[in-house]
């Protein structure tokens, strides 16, 4: 049975996207919406996506800041390494030692980074008209939304594919269980990556998605089947 139209994630997204677009104040966020919404009624093998990984100062969007965003486009089933981009955000407060240990972004490195509004202005065009792919995408969605509201006064609306959720939906597992990217990649025999920066993790996440799609039984999936519910 076909899903009810209001249960289709695409419909929900389109409504939210149109609403946000109509309310966005002029500036980079309005430009992001003006570029148009991504094509969702297509096969995965034809789709244009972008893998995103945010390095943040903590896990609480209300309190913590984005330090770095890594993006790698995924077009027609191919990850474009040459189009990988890194956007560094200048931290609002001094970095916590714990987060420095995780992503290796020191105060010095962060000092070369862009102010939050400039960083978002650089990042948003990379995401425009694309479906976003992330592992545990909730984090990326909430941090980007929080940052856009703070800087531009409007929400960030984008269709997401979450590789962690996809794993549980397609291949089983406890709902809500958090499985780290590296652990999941190992299950697919994907190589171990040493670096933990935004770009490296975005690529790692994209490769995981390719593996998941290749291992899904049945006919090649449509993009809609991948979207985060």
């Amino acid at each position, binding site marked *: 049975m076909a899903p009810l139209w209001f249960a289709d994630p695409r419909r929900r997204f389109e409504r939210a996207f149109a609403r946000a677009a109509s309310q966005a104040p002029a500036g980079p966020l309005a430009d992001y919406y003006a570029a148009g919404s991504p094509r969702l009624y297509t096969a995965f093998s034809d789709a244009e996506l972008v893998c995103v990984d945010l390095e943040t100062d903590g896990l609480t969007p209300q309190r913590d800041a984005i330090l770095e965003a890594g993006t790698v486009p995924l077009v027609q089933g191919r990850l474009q*390494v040459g189009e*990988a981009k*890194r956007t560094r955000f200048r931290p609002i407060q001094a970095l916590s030692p714990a987060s420095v240990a995780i992503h290796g972004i020191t105060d010095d490195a962060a000092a070369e980074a862009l102010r939050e509004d400039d960083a978002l202005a650089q990042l948003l065009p990379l995401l425009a008209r694309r479906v976003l792919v992330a592992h545990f995408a909730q984090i990326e969605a909430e941090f980007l939304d929080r940052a856009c509201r703070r800087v531009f006064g409007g929400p960030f609306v984008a269709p997401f594919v979450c590789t962690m959720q996809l794993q549980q939906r397609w291949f089983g597992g406890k709902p809500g269980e958090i499985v780290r990217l590296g652990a999941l990649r190992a299950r697919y025999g994907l190589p171990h990556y040493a670096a933990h920066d935004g770009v490296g993790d975005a690529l790692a996440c994209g490769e995981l998605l390719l593996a998941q799609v290749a291992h899904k039984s049945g006919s090649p999936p449509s993009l809609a089947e991948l979207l985060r519910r």
Partner: protein
Amino acid sequence: MGDESAEVRDVLAFLQSTEPFASLDDDHRRVVEKGIEVAYFRRGTVITDAGDANDRLSLIRSGAVELMLGGTQLSARLGERDCFGYPSLIRRGPAQNTATAIEDCLLYRLPGATFHVLRERCADFRKFFDIDESARLRRAVARMEGDGPVAGDESGLAIYATIGSFLSGRPAVSGDPALSVGEAAALMAREDVSTLPLCEDGRLLGIVTDKDLRRRVLAVQLDLATPVRAIMTPDPITIGLNDTAMTALLEMTRRHIHHLPVIDASGALVAVISASDVLGQLGAHSLRIPAEIERSASAQELATATARLPDAVSALVSAGVDASHVTHYASAIGGSAHCRLLELAQTELGPPPVPFALVCFGSLARYEQGLGSDQDNGFVLGEGYDEARHNSYFAALAKRLSDGLAAAGYAYCKGDIMATNPDCRRDLAGWQSRFGHWIATPDPQAVLDSAIFFDMRPLAGEEELVKQLREGVFAQARDNRIFLSFMARAAASTAVPLGFFRNFLLHHDADEGDVLDLKRQAIAPIVDIARCHALARAIPATGTLERLDAAAAAGGLHPEAARDLAAGFEFLCDVRFRHQAGQRARGEPLSNLLPPRELSRFDREHLRDAFRLIRAQLDKLRSDFAGGLT
């Protein structure tokens, strides 16, 4: 930042540790990284079909890929860090292989345009992706021989040490050319030198050696008051302080001399070095072994001398001496051991009642002996041999020879090809009829078993007997196409592997073996090819390289094929020696069995090239001699 893409550290790190990308400079490696697209293929998926257009170079990041020529014939299995797709890019034609993921694969794929740019700009990159495997193989051999082993620090090898670095520091003994012959001889005796450089105002004018005194003075009863200048060799070959030990060794070998005056940059005499100085520098003391064999008064003494052969060979190998020189050296030792043991036995048993020759077969006859060779020999008994009267003498002689050889490290022949076997003690007619039988009524097994008999040379005694035997046999073989077709077919039946897949050896039938038998699966087929051509043209040479050369000169073998096979042969022999040197260093018994995991990437790739070349030449041999019948 801005429009510049971000480095992906893990991708770069992988490229930095994977040839040929590792050897690119940073800028070009970045060009590769920026061109990469990552794709994933599940096990069982066809990546490219034979006949399809291909516009990418694929580098396996993880997983494995099988290539089937035309979609049907297995041609290779590739694993992590291997590349495929480049032959079609280079030819700018469709893919010839079907590439299928045989494990889940993550591929880094590079656009053809980027591949071509890199090939244009980077010579090493272009060489790496050469689709002409024989050119690659020849280059590998040239690198090993010309510049020393590839995989190591050449500067650390003794063979590349400069002459200056190992001179004793003792001032050179030299004389004035105005000295009389008698005075010069007295000076040489006093200083205990066999070579006397003669200098005027510090400039080297000539040299006089012991041999000159013998030949130009004593033998002709020259007046000892004659100025030594009259008998010196003027303008002798010299060597510079900055030349290498290898250069000195080659110079001495080429010119059959044992001493070289060393001069500095200004041309002034510094020292005289001897062959043993050079070889001593190689740590081998390799020249001592033949002398000790000559001097040994018993089989036990001889065994003590030959016991050092493995060390001498290892030292030569690790010094970077190429394999064909090492096999010649080892074969010379083997030959001397046979001769000396025979002399010792004759001292004990008395002189032979009739003339005879000691003949050797197989690798010793080909001058291709390595370490751990068996003995393969026989007697050709001459005029007047009478079985009833003389058999016991030759049986006893053979027994002593064979036991002595066994004690000296040459194992008894498992196939009983030894003079101790009455079947291997025959008069000329007896040998001729034995060979005649093999040639006239060949059967596959007999052809296999008899092959090594066709590599023969005399070691001692009446060499003419062996020469006559060989000439007769080769003339008979040359004229018998059926026999030649059996030889060719036997050779072509060897299962030469396809290559390697991870730590396995890959065969045509997709079987994966654990070890490579370097001798049986790679070296022997080349020896067989050379032998077939030698028989077909009655070529007298016994050495494989000489046979290939002669076959090419006689028009039996395409010169390029001869050159390729020679390069393959030298490469394989070199791999064998390096492998055996490793076995010795680890205290393992010597063998020709090579687990693929012990091979370097360089060796694997060039072995694969050698295999391919050998398979092609075996096919050619079969079609040339056996009408393509199998």
